[in-house]
């Protein structure tokens, strides 16, 4: 691979990746950490899109809806993450696990995984379709829904028993809340006063097939969670400063676990992925996002959402550098 991965798919579409060095170059021009995070999330979306396109399948909708939350956590919040043997370690994992491609993009963007893995999604010896602890920095195997709070509960008890410390951040899908185990896990976590657990619901309103409200409506989810004894906040899950505020607020709560209901948009960042199909079904949950219409998606992922000029400008500069490099490397 050259300095930048430009890859031709078998449909003839060209994929663009932004390498970590390019991302860091762009980030270095921004001072405000939250604004840095916004840009980082945009690069994460682009790389996620290209990874999934190259792999031919992957959960794009939920990778995109969770990207701002995941970017903030990994960029600004987690201390010594996912090092269970160490005295202090924060733990992050996604309970739904579908958003693995997005998480991999974040890892690669931060230099936690080699950039070559951008081309190894869902490949033998590469990055699995759902999280697996054989991948560095993955805390637990997920993808089978509803287990997240239970797992964090066990981890937290074990850390307490071993006199270790650290906070737990568990990302959950909203469709996932239909699983019985989620409800089974809520009360015991409160009973054990697990203030070190913060769960974040990526509330994008759409499950695998269709709208949650048309599948098995969650009802008044805030009230239900409060009734179990959780500390509950609801925020816009694409507003980095709101995410940051909620995370800080939760960290101050010590006597009970907290849950952030983050209102998000499934497929956020690509306009035509942000809505349910005319037939009532959502087409970008998993699988190949589109056949040959790739360049359309790439263009929109990078520029679909107007942001303050200086940030978008840097991103576009990075992206255009990336594209130029891609052309030179894709030629051979």
């Amino acid at each position, binding site marked *: 691979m050259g300095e930048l991965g430009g890859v031709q798919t078998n449909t003839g579409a060209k994929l663009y990746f932004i390498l970590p060095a390019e991302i860091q170059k762009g980030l270095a021009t921004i001072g405000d950490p939250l604004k840095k995070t916004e840009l980082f999330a945009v690069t994460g979306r682009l790389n996620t899109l290209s990874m999934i396109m190259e792999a031919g399948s992957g959960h794009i909708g939920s990778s995109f809806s969770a990207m701002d939350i995941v970017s903030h956590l990994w960029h600004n919040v987690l201390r010594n993450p996912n090092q269970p043997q160490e005295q202090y370690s924060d733990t992050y994992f996604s309970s739904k696990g579908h958003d693995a491609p997005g998480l991999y993009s974040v890892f690669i963007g931060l230099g936690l995984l080699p950039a070559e893995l951008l081309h190894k999604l869902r490949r033998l010896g590469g990055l699995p379709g759902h999280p697996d602890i054989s991948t560095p920095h993955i805390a637990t195997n*997920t993808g089978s829904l509803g*287990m997240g709070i239970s797992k*964090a509960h066990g981890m937290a*008890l074990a850390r307490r028993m071993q006199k*270790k410390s650290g906070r737990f951040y568990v990302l959950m899908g909203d469709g996932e809340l239909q699983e019985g185990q989620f409800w*089974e*896990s809520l009360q015991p976590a409160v009973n054990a006063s697990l203030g070190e657990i913060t769960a974040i619901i990526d509330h994008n309103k759409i499950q695998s097939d269709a709208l949650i409200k048309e599948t098995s409506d969650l009802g008044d989810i805030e009230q239900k969670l409060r009734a179990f004894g959780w500390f509950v906040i609801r925020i816009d899950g694409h507003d980095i400063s709101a995410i940051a505020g909620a995370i800080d607020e939760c960290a101050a709560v010590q006597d009970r676990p907290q849950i952030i209901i983050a209102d998000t948009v499934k497929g956020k960042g690509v306009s035509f992925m942000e809505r349910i199909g005319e037939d009532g079904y959502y087409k970008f949950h998993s699988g190949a996002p589109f056949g040959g219409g790739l360049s359309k998606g790439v263009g929109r992922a990078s520029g679909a959402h107007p942001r303050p000029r200086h940030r978008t400008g840097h991103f576009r500069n990075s992206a255009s550098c990336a594209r130029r490099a891609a052309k030179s490397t894709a030629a051979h």
Partner: protein
Amino acid sequence: MDADLILDTGLIPFKQRFPDRYVEAGIAEQDMVSRAGGMALEGLLPVVHSFACFLPARANEQFYNNASEKKKIIYASSLAGLLPAGPGHSHQSVRDISIVGSIPYLTLIEPANEFETKLVLRWAVEKNPESTYMRLVSIPVEVPFSLPEGYSLERGKGVVLKEGGDAAIIAYGPIMLSESYKAAQLLEKNGVSAAVINLPWLNVIDEKWLSEVTRGRALVATLDDHYKTFGQGAMISQVLAALPNAPLTLSIGLDDIPACGTNAEVLIHHKLDAESLAQRIIQALTPEV
């Protein structure tokens, strides 16, 4: 870790002795098993207990998810098997081998008596690098056999409890081994010499050992305290079928939803009592006219 069953299963002394190492999960097996997975990831060795009818069935996917992380957990299931028959089929665990037996990195084992139970627990803690599922019978049984002096567990290998040349009965656990032993005594009176072999391993088998211990016998009968389908007998038959000069095999186990009744009634009803076993073995050995 326990799911509201310490009174029924005699675990209160553990809780009293190790209050900091006892976790009451409530009647929430899936939550409990995933919590165990989280503990294992953080470096602990969780021992997870509930009834066999609930633990692997309710939390099957959680068992598998934990196994996929290849961390060590000990699952202990009590009330395994057909008896006691009083509670009825909701509590008669006769399908747990088939539920979790194919999970990689998980060894299923059922001890024959109190002594072997201690061996199994020690083996699970100290020797087995993988996770262990201990299947435990929960009624008092007066066993007519004893394990040989100096017996120790060897993965996939059984042990002969009673010698015999014509046939071999392979079983596990106190109830079915006792019925097998009594059946072998009845068979002797009918001129059939039958060995009784304890094979505590439910999903692993040493093929060489099985080949040697069954060589030259006219019949190998397997006896499951479980549905016959996908029980230990199926594993044994699979190995035997591939042997040259394979002995005739007779798979015995549950064929129907377990009946409710007294223990003796229900054993007879399902033709799993010593007398029925002896008859079925004689029948299998008798050439059809």
